[in-house]
């Protein structure tokens, strides 16, 4: 892979993160939690995608991102209020952006029609809303929009009025003035009248004029593969340029750092375009250079580009405000004049804007710097998350395999030591105990490396919900909880499908149409809650809706019609609810595009069971249903009961076992020609002879000769597994049979025991199901090895 491809790969990885940021930001705005920093973060995400896409000449992506970004910029500058309708549009726009990125990554073709429609919609907002709002000379901070009245710290925002009559194009207001913040520092609302400032930057250019552009790139600019020559070429497109180079900072050759930047350029550009357009040329490099753009003949003033430039006296400061109406812009790449944006309120420093303008003290530059600092910190936050490293997952998998082998080896060693009759107090046995603890510690740590928050799965769900809601014509609000819940990567990968199914089901079958909801006295908008939590060493995923609940009468009727249950079956409410998991069951009157695609809940349940998980549903008529999915935290190790069956050693997952018992002969009743049941506390459970089901022996072993493991399968049904003896309980490392062979009926996986031999892990449900399969073909008897 060449270098460019490598960088491109990194870009797409970053895109994933940016798209996730984008979506979570928009969702926060939708929930009314967004402050102006959220809007900025959303804008930056799209902006960065666009910037990176530009570098790789991904034209379609750039074009789309540009329209999206333009609208977001209008939202950011409060030209357009972030109304709920707009946020919904933005969310769909974000979905399309994700599609575009995917298309760019795979080289595929994005959905042109959807993109064009969305571009039209976005442009409609830009033109329609922007034009309507623009002429207003003063504008209050839009309530519930970016500058929310209160943020989570409980800091109040008081909208203040700024008269900016001269800037008809940019009615940017909403400068914050909080009465008190957390620290008890008072902010005094100030009245800024910018009308008296002359604002050359915003005046529509009358005709051709000369601009002096001083451009001093930092090393970082070159490190990001930008090139001055290209920027100059872009400038030249705007008009004739005269370029001179400033090499005054150039050092002698022996001190020269080849990766550093020493040169500056001074460009005289004659053009009729506005300053903004010139500045746009430097859009992607504005963080990595010092850039001044002034009209020829005008006093040259340092303008905060990457950092707030130190300003020595108040006069210069005022001149700075004069020259460029950007006062402490929230982001450094800010171009449009945003006046005293909201983040200033969050500044911990006791700053009031007033001294900047009024007090003629040398201290003035400090507040200016302080004002610039907090937004900068906030701006850098997404770019510099806590120190993490990217590791190829294969390396971690290899490490986990090795640790698995270490665990096996340690167990083998322990067994050998035991065989040689060392006393538990002997040095060897004690050393071995320590080794065991260390091994466990290593294993836990390695598993923790691979643990990931379920967020990566959850963040795909809002989009799914939007799509399903659109298709079904239902209004849905998705509430997500516990996104930080960590679970092993092997489980994460398998969560997506069941969650998708559960959500589709909750919206399609659970929620009513808005009209029905209103008729039932509910909010027209249904709520679906998706939550993750740890419970009892497992991860539990809940999908809850506030819909109509399961129609038990209908479920029962369908189950009877389809011959799934007998007409006279007596079922509890819970049992009835869980009938929907039976194969061949589908309550949708017509097969809808969403849930009834032949892949029903039975398939979901089977795949969940294959992972050692359970899924169930409970429901209250009229109030909604709740799906509960529980899975082991990892698919790499398992707590199991080691049993002997006809000379074979098998492992039964502990999660399936309710209890083990040694039956008395009077508790066992024959039922049918071969079957027998065991009376356990007044209920009869069918007995399953594991040895004969698996073909380890031909004749049924009398249950009284062995032990019975009472197991519960996923439908809540119980069975008694007959085994010869129980060896003990052990944590085992799960080894797939499929990687080198194939799936074997009745066997979930294999593991390696302390003696180095392979033992099979029983698939309890499958074994119980195998027993039911009648008539059984005679199986060749397998002899235990040796």
């Amino acid at each position, binding site marked *: 892979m060449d270098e460019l491809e490598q960088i491109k790969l990194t870009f797409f990885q970053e895109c994933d993160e940016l798209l996730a940021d984008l979506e979570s930001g928009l969702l926060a705005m939708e929930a009314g939690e967004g402050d102006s920093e959220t809007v900025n973060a959303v804008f930056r995400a799209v902006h960065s995608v666009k910037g990176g896409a530009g570098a790789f000449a991904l034209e379609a992506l750039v074009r789309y991102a540009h329209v999206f970004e333009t609208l977001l910029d209008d939202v950011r500058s409060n030209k357009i209020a972030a109304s709920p309708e707009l946020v919904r549009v933005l969310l769909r726009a974000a979905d399309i952006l994700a599609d575009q990125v995917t298309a760019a990554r795979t080289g595929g073709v994005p959905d042109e029609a959807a993109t064009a429609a969305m571009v039209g919609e976005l442009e409609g907002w830009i033109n329609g809303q922007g034009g309507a709002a623009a002429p207003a000379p003063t504008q209050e901070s839009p309530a519930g929009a970016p500058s929310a009245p209160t943020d989570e710290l409980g800091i109040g925002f008081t909208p203040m009025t700024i008269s900016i009559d001269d800037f008809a194009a940019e009615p940017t207001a909403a400068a914050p003035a909080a009465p008190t913040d957390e620290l008890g520092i008072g902010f005094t609302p100030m009245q800024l009248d910018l009308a008296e400032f002359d604002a050359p930057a915003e005046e529509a250019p009358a005709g051709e004029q000369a601009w002096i552009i001083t451009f001093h790139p930092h090393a970082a600019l070159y490190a990001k593969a930008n090139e001055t020559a290209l920027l100059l070429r872009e400038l030249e497109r705007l008009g004739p340029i005269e370029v001179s180079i400033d090499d005054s900072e150039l050092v002698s050759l022996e001190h020269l750092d080849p990766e550093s930047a020493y040169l500056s350029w001074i460009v005289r550009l004659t053009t009729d375009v506005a300053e903004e357009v010139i500045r746009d040329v430097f859009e992607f490099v504005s963080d990595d250079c010092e850039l001044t753009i002034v009209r020829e003949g005008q006093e040259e003033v340092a303008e905060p580009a990457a950092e707030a430039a130190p300003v020595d006296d108040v006069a210069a400061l005022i001149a700075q405000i004069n020259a460029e109406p950007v006062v402490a812009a929230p982001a450094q790449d800010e171009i449009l004049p945003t006046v005293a944006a909201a983040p200033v309120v969050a500044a911990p420093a006791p700053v009031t804007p007033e001294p900047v303008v009024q007090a003629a003290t040398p201290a003035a530059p400090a507040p200016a710097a302080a004002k610039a600092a907090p937004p900068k910190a906030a701006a850098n936050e997404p770019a510099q998350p806590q120190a993490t490293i990217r590791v190829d997952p294969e390396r971690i998998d290899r490490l986990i395999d090795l640790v698995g*082998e270490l665990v096996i080896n340690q167990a083998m060693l322990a067994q050998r030591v035991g065989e040689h009759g060392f006393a538990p107090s002997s040095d060897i046995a004690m050393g071995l105990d320590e080794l065991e603890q260390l091994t466990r510690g290593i294993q836990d740590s390695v598993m923790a490396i691979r643990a990931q928050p379920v967020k990566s799965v959850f963040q795909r769900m809002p989009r799914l919900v939007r799509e399903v809601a659109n298709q079904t014509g239902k209004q849905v609000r998705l509430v997500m909880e516990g996104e930080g819940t960590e679970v092993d990567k092997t489980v994460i990968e398998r969560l997506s499908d069941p969650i998708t199914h559960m959500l589709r089901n909750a919206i399609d079958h659970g929620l009513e149409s808005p009209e029905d909801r209103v008729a039932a006295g509910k909010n027209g908008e249904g709520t679906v809650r998706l939550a993750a939590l740890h419970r009892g060493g497992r991860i539990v995923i809940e999908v809850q809706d506030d819909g109509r609940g399961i129609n038990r009468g209908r479920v029962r009727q369908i189950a009877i019609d389809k011959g799934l249950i007998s007409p006279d079956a007596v079922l509890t409410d819970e049992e009835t609810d869980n009938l929907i998991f039976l194969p061949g069951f589908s309550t949708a009157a017509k097969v809808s595009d969403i849930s009834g695609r032949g892949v029903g809940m039975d398939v979901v349940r089977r795949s969940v069971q294959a992972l050692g998980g359970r899924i169930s549903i409970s429901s209250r008529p009229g109030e909604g249903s709740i799906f509960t999915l529980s899975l082991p935290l990892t698919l790499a190790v398992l707590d199991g009961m080691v049993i002997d069956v006809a000379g*074979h050693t098998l492992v039964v997952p502990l999660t399936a076992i309710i209890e083990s018992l040694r039956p008395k002969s009077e508790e066992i009743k024959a039922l049918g020609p071969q079957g027998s049941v065991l009376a356990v506390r007044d209920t009869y459970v069918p007995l399953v002879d594991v040895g004969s089901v698996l073909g380890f022996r031909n004749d049924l072993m009398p249950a009284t000769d062995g032990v019975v493991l009472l197991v519960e399968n996923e439908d809540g049904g119980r069975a008694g597994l007959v085994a010869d003896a129980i060896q003990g309980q052990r944590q085992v490392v799960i*080894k*797939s*049979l499929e990687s080198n062979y194939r799936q074997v009926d009745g066997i979930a996986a294999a593991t390696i025991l302390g003696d180095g*031999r*392979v033992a*099979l892990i029983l698939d309890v449900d499958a074994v119980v199901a195998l027993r039911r399969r009648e008539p059984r073909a005679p199986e060749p008897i397998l*002899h235990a090895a040796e």
Partner: protein
Amino acid sequence: MAETVQQSTFDNREFIAFCIGEQEFCVDIMSVREIRGWSPATPLPQTPDYMRGVINLRGAVLPIMDLASRLGLQSNEPSERSVIIVVRMGERTIGLLVDAVSDILSVTQEMIQATPDVACDKVKSFVRGLITVEGRMISEIANERLLPELEALAA
């Protein structure tokens, strides 16, 4: 001259030859990962009888195929002198149980003859060609064909 020698070395393929009963077979040496002695396998239920079960190969679960049984030959109970040839088949690694490893052969393509038509179905599907070395006839096993049936079973 040197060039010709190099060329012919390049053309040579090497095979591991082994015995099952009286017959000799071989597999391409490039597919062989290792050769190890017999260790008791854990039988798998619900599998064809030529699957001997699985063994622990340094932490991995390795299925063992009784090649004699797979080829329809007389299968003997494995002894201490039985050998497992660990071969790679696509994504999978499996162990072939054979009686003994006999030789390493270096043969050119011309030395490999097509399987004659007289052979029975099993031989025809699993034997790719015949190699004659010092008067012995050695059948080359098409080991990738041992596997598709496994996949068909799994489906």
